[in-house]
């Protein structure tokens, strides 16, 4: 770990493209040295629909970050999202050969292979295979079985997979911008890296990252990932609902959402009106109660759908850390009390954990995914350096997405 490493996170979101350049210094600490942001065009509900347009946005964000960092970058860690991402848990098991009792490295590899032997739809590829824990002779909760004595090794993995062509679209536009993709990470996984620490994960927590076009969620229990997924509904839907419900142009709907809407339970009974201050718009006044009703209905539905999707009721007792909200839409007023109301556990809004670097980005939940990407990259780098050369050959992502 003598050299310093440059890590670049690139989030191609529905509402913005965000680039974060971070440096791991020789003392092992991560420092953010440049950030860039551009309005996103050509992305709908988290998926790229116009490669030409998004490539321009991407160039803009990356150039800004490069300028601030005064570095030129070559490779990036990119996030992917979209409703095509799916996840499942699978348990694999192998017997330990008769001629020995001790579990060896190759057994761990073999059990991982057996856990990955699941059928995913044709045209899908694995994005993540996250180890949850091992079982030795049926004994639960083994985190590192190497060297243990046993006759049978089992492992449970959380597997994330998605449509190959859609993942490739993200990669393609990054390549169009003359950048190399070194790693691909599910947005929810990245965001969780940014907003959680080890103790959060241990106590169990549900992270919901509500962006512009999607809501990405990931649930940790006893330190490991149990559930994850994407719902193709986000802040844009709130804006759209406001625009339709209150009959105002999108621009105003967005402004009303950010500045005025309050989704705290009970705010639907709010009194008074909001005046639209625009000389070019003669729309007049908006009922506060209507605005809040429209916004609350949508956000509540998102929470209810996530709750149902992950079967939250069965997990609630293992989620001591409650619900952690992040992503741009988490800035919506009253969103944490609404989440607490729906999930029945405490909820809070979280921004990225502070690192060294410009403070502005640690004060907004909008940056969670991009910051999470560099943290993920750093963690992957450390893991790579610590594990044996033998292990490096099975470097996960390389195998998981061929032709990266």
């Amino acid at each position, binding site marked *: 770990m003598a050299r310093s490493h440059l890590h670049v996170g690139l989030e191609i979101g529905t509402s913005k493209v965000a680039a974060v350049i971070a440096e791991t210094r020789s003392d092992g600490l991560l420092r953010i040295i440049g950030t860039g942001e551009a309005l996103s065009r050509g992305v709908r509900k988290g998926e790229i629909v116009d490669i030409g347009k998004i490539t321009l946005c991407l160039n803009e964000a990356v150039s800004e970050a490069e300028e601030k960092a005064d570095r030129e970058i070559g490779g990036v860690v990119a996030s992917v999202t979209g409703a095509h991402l799916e996840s499942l848990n699978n348990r694999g098991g192998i017997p330990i050969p008769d001629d020995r009792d001790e579990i060896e490295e190759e057994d761990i590899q073999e059990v991982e292979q057996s856990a990955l032997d699941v059928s995913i739809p044709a045209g899908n590829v694995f994005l993540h295979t996250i180890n949850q824990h091992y079982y030795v002779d049926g004994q639960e909760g083994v985190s590192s079985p190497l060297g243990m004595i046993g006759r049978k090794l089992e492992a449970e993995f959380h597997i994330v997979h998605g449509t190959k062509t859609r993942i490739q679209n993200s990669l393609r536009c990054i390549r169009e911008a003359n950048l190399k993709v070194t790693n691909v990470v599910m947005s929810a996984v990245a965001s969780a890296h940014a907003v959680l620490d080890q103790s959060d994960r241990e106590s169990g927590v549900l992270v919901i990252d509500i962006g512009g076009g999607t809501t990405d969620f990931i649930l940790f229990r006893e330190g490991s990932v149990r559930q994850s997924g994407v719902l193709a*509904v986000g802040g844009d839907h709130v804006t759209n609902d406001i625009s339709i419900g209150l009959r105002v142009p999108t621009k105003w709907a967005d402004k009303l959402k950010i500045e005025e809407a309050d989704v705290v339970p009970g705010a639907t009974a709010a009194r008074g009106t909001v005046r639209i201050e625009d000389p070019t718009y003669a729309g007049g006044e908006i009922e506060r109660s209507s605005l809040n009703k*429209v916004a609350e209905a949508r956000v509540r539905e998102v929470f209810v759908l996530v709750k149902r999707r992950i079967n939250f009721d069965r997990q609630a007792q293992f989620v001591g850390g409650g619900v952690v909200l992040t992503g741009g839409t988490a800035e919506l007023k009253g969103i944490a009390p609404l989440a607490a109301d729906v999930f029945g556990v405490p909820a809070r809004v979280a921004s990225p954990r502070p690192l060294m670097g410009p403070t502005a980005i640690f004060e907004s939940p909008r940056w969670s995914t991009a910051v999470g990407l560099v943290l993920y990259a750093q963690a992957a780098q450390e893991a790579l350096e610590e594990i044996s050369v033998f292990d490096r050959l099975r470097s996960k992502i390389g195998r998981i997405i061929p032709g990266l």
Partner: protein
Amino acid sequence: MITVGTNERFSTPLAAVSSVKVVGLGNAGLAVLARLAGEPGAPADLVAVHTDAKAVAASPAARKMQIGHGVAKGLGSGGDVARGRASASESLTDLRAECKGVEVVLLCAGLGGGTGSGAAPVVAEQAKKSGALVIAAVTLPFAAEGSRKRELAEESLARLGRHCLAVLCFENDRMVEVVRAEAPVAEALGAAAGVLSLAVRAVAQMVGLPAVMPVGLDELLQMFAGADARAHFGYGSASGPDRARLAVAQALRSPLLEEGKLLSEPGRVLVHLTGDDSLTLSELQSVLRRLSDHLGPATLMHFGVANDPAAGGNLGVTILGCTHSGVPSLVPEDEDDLELPAEPAAEADGPAEGDKPGDSGGKRGKGKGKKNEAGQTQEELPLDQAMRGRFKDLDPTMVDGQDLDIPAFIRMRIRLK
């Protein structure tokens, strides 16, 4: 809409049928045959039946039958239902002979006209008597054609229901929704015949092709057992590597499925895939997964796969849905009457009372009940495309049969000031 004659019950499952005959009746029926004749993979046995000698002669169907020589004298029935009926009655033996030894008769006709409305129930009855299972695919007249025509059509529909295993009933108004408003009339009518011919072909394939995973008449029947209301139809076909997705998308675009929305209502859905040997398990899964997003939590899906060697790389997806209105079917059980239906005078006040379940108005009550339910559905789910706002050009995000792109407050029916 599909309605089912409630007096048909089968206790034994049926194997794939070996003989299917498509009978086109009247102008609309012949138009469907003309389309089927021009398409590859269409059922082979087409029978054209009409009172009009010229129309019969012009039909590309292999078998031609002019009915009512004496009554109609080789002309059309002139919109007279009684004449249509009498013409068919005159040719009873011919009709029965034509259907002899056929396992399934698919009868297509346009209701509202003379030959279609008058003769269809008779033809269905004779086909049934000759031992065939009868499935009818019929159209209801355009609303603009007037309420009297509509009444005639619905009367005929109710009579037809008694002799048929199932009646796939299509509203002309709905079918032409695929066509631009400024399209020529011929194109609009052609589109209606096109939809009908697709439905006929799909059902013929469903029951006639060797099944890999059978869904046959028994399943059709089971699905429509006690069916008391309306059902929906969608068909899509595509080739190439992405054919599973494309075919499903096309099937869901069918106007009769209301963009797939109707699948979300409680009831049953039958999905039938046809393809040649290149059809893979993962494509099958892909089709079912895509469709399952559109199904409501209370919707039951049956599916089947048939091998069509003539598919030529095409994957066909047929969706037949059925929703129950909760109003019991009121098709009268008195069979085989060849008398004219109850005189219109007795039913003049039908529309006002027809909705009540158990209404003695019988078939009229049924007809009105269906119509009203369809009307309600439209009120509850207004103009989706406009309601999707900025998402209108994107694939909908379907969860539990709901399109999440439609504002949440609208779907939850939250009242705003």
